[in-house]
């Protein structure tokens, strides 16, 4: 009973095992596949296949082939020579230019599986062995090295009989680099490589291919070292020299182009002399006499550009302060009263003389005043001294015209302070020091300007001050034909700017001019004082125009009506001596 039971159980177990094994482990073999067939020399060839799954059972593989135009099926003659899963066809079994139809069959206990058939023609599956005996040597060509590579065809390939024709290819690279340099050598068995790096280590490989077939594998690498050669260094130096020469040329050309601006930068030009209206060439080329005469130009200071009217003084205001002390003026007035010719511009670097200095002028005036007082004390001497002084003035004035240009500003202050100099005594007009300083000369210059308005000496006297005005009267004419003046005290002041009539003795009337060209003046006592009136030019019998202060501009010279004159000549009180009795001008 127990034995039967055990047998049944065993049977059951066996039965259970069998279907289980068939379902999971054992099956037909997987389909093999021919991977490739190759012939190394066109005389034999080998085919390899890839086996499929074996199906769990031991599987055997067989290769069958059929030749073209034949139904006979042959099996692979040699399964072992070429390794596992391969079939080797030797020379006897190989026919060239014949189509082979090859199939691999995998079979196991359960069955067999056929692979897909493959058609091959041996001519087109030739893959030779790599070239052999690759030799690389360094050779020299006129001092430049090159590599000579030589090799031999694989010994199996029969190229000598012309059965196979191989073409070769080689590749070169430096050690450590990734890029190969390829060269096709054709059918020759030798090749030269140029353009080598000095001292470089190279690797060379060769491979070959039949006319229609596959490339062989690369031969094993041959190492070669190129020796150093000197030419390379020399060429580098030559290159550097050329490069720097080129740079130098460019820089010098740039400097040459910009030479002007560079010169200005490094050596700035010296400013030349700035004299308006003066030819600089004279300073360079001319003689000293020419230079000096050029400086004394007839139209110097230049009046051509400016209006002539600007130079004529409209009127000269001279005031005598109420008290016998110097009226200190504001510097402001000084500057306000600066004589400026209408419309002219000043040169920036023209100097301003000491006349501009307010304090200096005051000092000079003070001194002058003291001196004047002193001179007054010498009563009898005043006249001659005054004459002397006047002469000195005149001389100074005349010579002064020949001196260097003085800015009109210098004269401005003088006009202002002039009355202070004049103020205390009528005789004080001739106050100046015995030694005319530059200030005195300047004053004289102003004075002479005012005296001789139409003369060649220019005058810039224009705007007078606002305070009381005084007139200057002609005192005498000396033997040298100079007019001596002295101020006339003001009777009463008013702003109308007219000439005041004064009483009596301070005014002089021109009586006539004698043979010696001396202006004869006559004193008269005015009984009436005629008030001012808008001045007009009035024609009288003889001398017509009244003597007005110099300016010929619109501002208002006054006329005095005719007064009884003791003289026969019905002359007005004042004569424009310049027009009536032309004085000889020195």
């Amino acid at each position, binding site marked *: 009973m127990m034995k039967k039971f055990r047998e049944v159980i065993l049977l059951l177990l066996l039965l259970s095992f069998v279907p289980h094994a068939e379902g999971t482990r054992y099956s037909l073999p997987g389909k093999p596949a021919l991977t490739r067939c190759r012939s190394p020399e066109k*005389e034999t060839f080998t085919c390899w296949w890839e086996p499929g799954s074996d199906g769990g059972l031991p599987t055997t593989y067989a290769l069958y082939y*059929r030749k073209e135009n034949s139904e006979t099926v042959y099996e692979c003659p040699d399964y072992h020579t070429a390794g596992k899963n391969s079939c080797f066809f030797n020379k006897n079994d190989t026919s060239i230019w014949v189509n082979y139809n090859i199939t691999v069959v995998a079979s196991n206990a359960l069955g067999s599986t056929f692979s897909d058939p493959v058609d091959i*023609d041996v*001519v087109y599956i030739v893959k030779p062995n790599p070239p052999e005996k690759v030799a690389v040597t360094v050779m020299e060509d006129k001092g430049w090295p090159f590599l000579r590579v030589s090799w031999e065809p694989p010994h199996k390939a029969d190229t*000598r*009989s*012309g*059965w196979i024709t191989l073409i070769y290819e080689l590749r070169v690279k430096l050690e450590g680099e990734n890029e190969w340099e390829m060269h096709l050598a054709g059918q020759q068995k030798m090749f030269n490589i140029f353009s080598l790096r000095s001292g470089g280590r190279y690797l060379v490989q060769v491979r070959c291919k039949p006319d229609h077939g596959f490339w062989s594998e690369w031969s094993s690498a041959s190492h070669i070292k190129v020796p150093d050669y000197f030419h390379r260094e020399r060429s580098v130096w030559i290159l550097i020299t050329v490069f720097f020469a080129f740079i130098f040329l460019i820089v010098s050309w740039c400097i040459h182009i910009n030479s002007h601006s560079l010169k200005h930068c490094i050596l700035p030009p010296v400013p030349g002399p700035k004299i308006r209206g003066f030819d600089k060439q004279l300073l360079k080329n001319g003689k000293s006499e020419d230079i000096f005469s050029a400086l004394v130009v007839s139209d110097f200071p230049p009046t051509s550009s400016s209006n002539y009217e600007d130079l004529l003084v409209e009127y000269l205001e001279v005031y005598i302060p109420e008290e016998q002390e110097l009226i200190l003026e504001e510097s402001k007035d000084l500057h306000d009263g600066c004589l400026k010719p209408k419309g002219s511009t000043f040169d920036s670097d023209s100097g301003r003389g000491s006349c501009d200095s307010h304090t200096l002028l005051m000092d000079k005036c003070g001194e002058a005043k003291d001196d004047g007082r002193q001179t007054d004390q010498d009563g009898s001497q005043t006249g001659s001294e005054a004459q002397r002084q006047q002469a000195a003035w005149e001389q100074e004035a005349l010579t002064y015209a020949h001196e260097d240009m003085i800015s009109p500003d210098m004269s401005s202050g003088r006009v202002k302070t002039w009355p202070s100099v004049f103020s205390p005594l009528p005789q004080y007009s001739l106050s100046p020091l015995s030694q005319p300083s530059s200030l005195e000369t300047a004053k004289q210059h102003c004075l002479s300007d005012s005296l001789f308005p139409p003369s060649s000496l220019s005058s810039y006297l224009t705007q007078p001050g606002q305070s009381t005005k005084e007139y200057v009267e002609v005192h005498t004419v000396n033997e040298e034909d100079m007019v001596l003046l002295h101020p006339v005290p003001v009777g009463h002041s008013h702003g109308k700017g007219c000439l005041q009539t004064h009483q009596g003795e301070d005014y002089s009337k021109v009586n006539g001019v004698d043979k010696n060209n001396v202006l004869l003046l006559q004193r008269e006592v005015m009984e009436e004082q005629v008030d001012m009136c808008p001045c007009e030019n009035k024609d009288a019998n003889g001398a017509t125009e009244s003597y007005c202060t110099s300016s010929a501009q619109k501002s208002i010279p006054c006329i005095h009506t005719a007064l009884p004159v003791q003289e026969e000549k019905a002359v007005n009180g004042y004569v424009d001596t310049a027009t009536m009795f032309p004085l000889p001008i020195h």
Partner: protein
Amino acid sequence: MPGNIRSVCAVWAMLVCLVFCGKLTTVDAAPLCTNAQAGCHVLSLANLFDRVIQHSARMHGISNDLHSEFELYFLPSKNQIGRVSRNCHTSSILTPNGKENAQRMAREELTEVILKLLVAWRDPLWHFHQSMAHHHDFNNFSSNKSLEMSDMVHELRKGVQKVVEKMQMLGIISNSVSNLASPEALLASDSAEWRLMKDYDLLYCFRRDSNKVQNYLKILKCRIVPEHGC
């Protein structure tokens, strides 16, 4: 001014052309004379062989290209069983199928085989070109190739005949090789078979045969004049 430059350039170009043409004509001026006449520039046998072999190599290259194009465009199924029994019309010509067989063959036989092959393909290729010209599926490039191929076969045959004449003259081979009679005879017997072939098979067969010709010529050359390139 530009007119002067142009005239100068034209004159200079003409001079250059004259010089070059002179050089070229001096090279081509020598005719190929088989009778070794005086003043003839005689080509050596090795030179003749090289030219012929180059020509056959070019012919084979063109046939290979055409065959590849056919395979691309038409892709005949490679698994046809019937393909094995493809029958080239030249299969009746006995050709050596191995190196030993080829080396064992006499020079005269080998030469005859070459000539037979070349003769056998003259007409089929001409007709193939005609059919290709009418086929609008092919581009002009293929049509030109087929024309070139048929011309080359003709040229190659003439060349090989010249080589044979040279060899016979030099006494390398006997005069048993019949140049004119046998090709015409062969042609008459095989005239019908190639018409049955399809275009693709024709190309396949010709590719193989051109390879054979090239190979046989090389063997001949290395056997007869082995100095250069063997």
